[in-house]
């Protein structure tokens, strides 16, 4: 498989005035207080500045042979789904499309797309050929309101004829479009979500595409696997496993390599070891261990060497989360104050400080946004159920993302900083959902068995 970029207009400058404005419009500060001083990058979710989002049409990709028709349909549908999901642009409804569908740029009739009812600003189109096991997709993005302009994007994708490969290419193309139209925002269409599922009878680690497709098991340990966390390079997943040794089973840290499809050798320690979390540079793993008695936080190398204790306080210290931007701060859960609450400390354990909230109640599951400024977490206020909140750590401003919809826990941010994956019981069983970081556009990704503990890959 390879990708070739060709005939691309405006290679390094913001694509055109309109799209640039649309991008600006999409960078919106969610108003959480009247204080204009809080004007930082908050959630990039809506417009709200009166600037319309870019309207993008995705024409049905033309099959080069009749047998390629279903494959072309998958490609078009996945690109459309990815663009809609991004939240930064508006996908033109298919019912407004002109009947003539271009398969190559010479067939594109700009006005047919830019005029009402489509009123598109940009059109993605192309063709798909499948002969034997060889897949070839040509894909373009054109600014139809500017007929003289060259292609905004032109891509060729070659690979094997498999459903998963076509989806991968569609996600890549969608991410290219999103990155172009947003001025470099990373798309999430190629990302994956690790999670725990009971559907095979035991809790095992599973992985799926960001949109819930191609759900597949990674582990088959037939015991209890919990708390998966991606390594920053997405080559490994660290998790909590129950491993027998010498007739005694205990909770240990397990590390699965997606490259070899096997567990990596990692030391065992006494007591309960759980909740591993990798530092943003991948050089350290922090985890909870009771190897010295009380459950405390420890760090070690990715191979288990250079073990060092980090916390010294009576009670449980767990759920470490490294600040992905700085790598210098760790948010964690501790009940040193009586009940589980959030604390932030330096990565060496110094300067632990409690994140004070107005009410009491359990506060758990800290998750940093990719820009290292926001903490998502789950909070059960004294009178309610677990709901998700996001706090601006610098200002302590707080937004509630879920309410009156079952138990909502375990947030994890997408690398675009605009989406959050979490587990919720709102549908009656525990399932994985995503939503925009302002709490809107909730989407259910799983439905088979009980599914929990999602973790979004960083790329």
């Amino acid at each position: 498989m390879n990708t070739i970029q060709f005939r691309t207009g405006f290679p390094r400058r913001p694509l055109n005035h309109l799209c640039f404005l649309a991008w600006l419009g999409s960078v919106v500060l969610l108003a959480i207080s009247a204080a204009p001083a809080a004007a930082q990058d908050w959630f990039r979710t809506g417009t709200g500045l009166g600037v319309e989002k870019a309207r993008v049409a995705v024409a049905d990709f033309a099959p080069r042979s009749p047998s390629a028709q279903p494959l072309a349909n998958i490609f078009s549908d996945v690109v459309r789904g990815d663009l809609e999901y991004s939240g930064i642009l508006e996908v033109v409804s298919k019912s407004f499309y002109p009947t003539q569908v271009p398969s190559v740029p010479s067939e594109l009739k700009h006005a047919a797309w830019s005029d009402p009812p489509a009123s598109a600003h940009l059109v993605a189109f192309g063709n798909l050929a499948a002969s034997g096991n060889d897949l070839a997709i040509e894909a373009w993005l054109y600014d139809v309101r500017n007929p003289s302009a060259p292609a905004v994007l032109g891509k060729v994708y070659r690979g094997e004829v498999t459903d998963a490969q076509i989806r991968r290419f569609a996600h890549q193309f969608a991410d290219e479009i999103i990155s172009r139209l947003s001025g470099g925002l990373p798309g999430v269409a190629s990302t994956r979500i690790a999670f725990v599922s009971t559907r095979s009878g035991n809790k095992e680690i599973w992985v799926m595409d960001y949109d819930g497709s191609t759900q597949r098991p990674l582990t088959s340990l037939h015991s209890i696997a919990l708390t998966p966390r991606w390594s920053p390079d997405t080559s490994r997943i660290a998790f909590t496993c129950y491993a027998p040794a010498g007739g005694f089973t205990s909770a240990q840290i397990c590390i699965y390599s997606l490259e070899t499809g096997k567990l990596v050798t990692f030391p065992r320690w006494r007591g309960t070891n759980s909740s591993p979390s990798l530092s943003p540079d991948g050089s350290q793993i922090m985890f909870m261990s009771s190897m010295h008695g009380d459950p405390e936080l420890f760090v070690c190398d990715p191979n288990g060497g250079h073990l060092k204790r980090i916390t010294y306080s009576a009670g449980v210290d767990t759920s470490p989360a490294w600040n992905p931007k700085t790598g210098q701060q760790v948010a964690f859960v501790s009940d040193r104050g009586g009940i589980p609450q959030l604390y932030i400390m330096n990565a060496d354990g110094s300067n632990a400080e409690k994140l004070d909230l107005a009410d009491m109640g359990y506060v758990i599951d800290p998750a940093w946004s990719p820009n290292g400024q926001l903490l998502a977490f789950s909070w059960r206020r004294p009178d309610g159920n677990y709901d998700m909140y996001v706090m601006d750590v610098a200002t302590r401003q707080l937004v509630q993302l879920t309410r009156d919809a079952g138990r909502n826990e375990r947030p994890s941010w997408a690398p675009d900083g605009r989406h959050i994956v979490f587990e919720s019981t709102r549908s009656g069983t525990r399932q994985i959902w995503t939503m925009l970081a302002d709490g809107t556009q909730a989407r259910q990704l799983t439905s088979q068995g009980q599914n929990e503990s999602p973790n979004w890959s960083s790329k």
Partner: protein
Amino acid sequence: MMRSRFSGKAILFCLLASVLLVAACAKKVAPPPPAPPPPPPAPARPTVTLQASSTFIQKGESVTLSWSSTNATQLTLGPGVGTVAPEGSTRVSPEASTTYTITATGPGGSADASARITVAAPPPPPPPAPPAETMEEMFRKNVLDAFFDYDKSDIRPDAREALSRTAQFLRTNAPINVTIEGHCDERGSTEYNLGLGERRAQATKQFLIQLGVAPERMETVSYGKEKPFCTASNEACWQQNRRGHFVPAR
């Protein structure tokens, strides 16, 4: 034409066979019936007697049944014996009290005689020694779990009592090592509960150390909320799940 000729032959053959058959039969029935014999004298009515060598036996013993008869052509002794000679004896060993009946049948009619054997239950055997309690049963009876308050790992008064009994057993059964599992109810997070369950297992272990159980005989493991004893969402069930649970080490 062919068909009717064949049919004609068959009919001819059948006719011939019938004639021959009739002729043969006619030969047999031909002699006249003999004159009926004079009526015999009325046969004597049969008699029968049945005696048991003992009418009261212990279960497992046997008894001899003897009988004699006159004018009988057939004698049936029951239950369970069958046709017998006109005079004789047999040993029976009934399991339970039984009435034996002998029926004599002859040309003059039939006659019965009975003998009841009462079988006493055997004296109760000496009660068997109660099966030795297995170590597993003793463990289950004497090693008691410690239960905890919500989000707490302090040993409560009821847990002190339970653990005192547990310690007593473990002190006197030195070869037994245990795993102490810490469990939690469903309300906390998976990760926090793994820590809390460990705290409960540790608190249980520390209390037993104070009561004289050697620390190296006890391993701790937390299952958090992953292996609940009870799955309903109410306090009675949650209490069942907040515990330090003992499992004999293998």
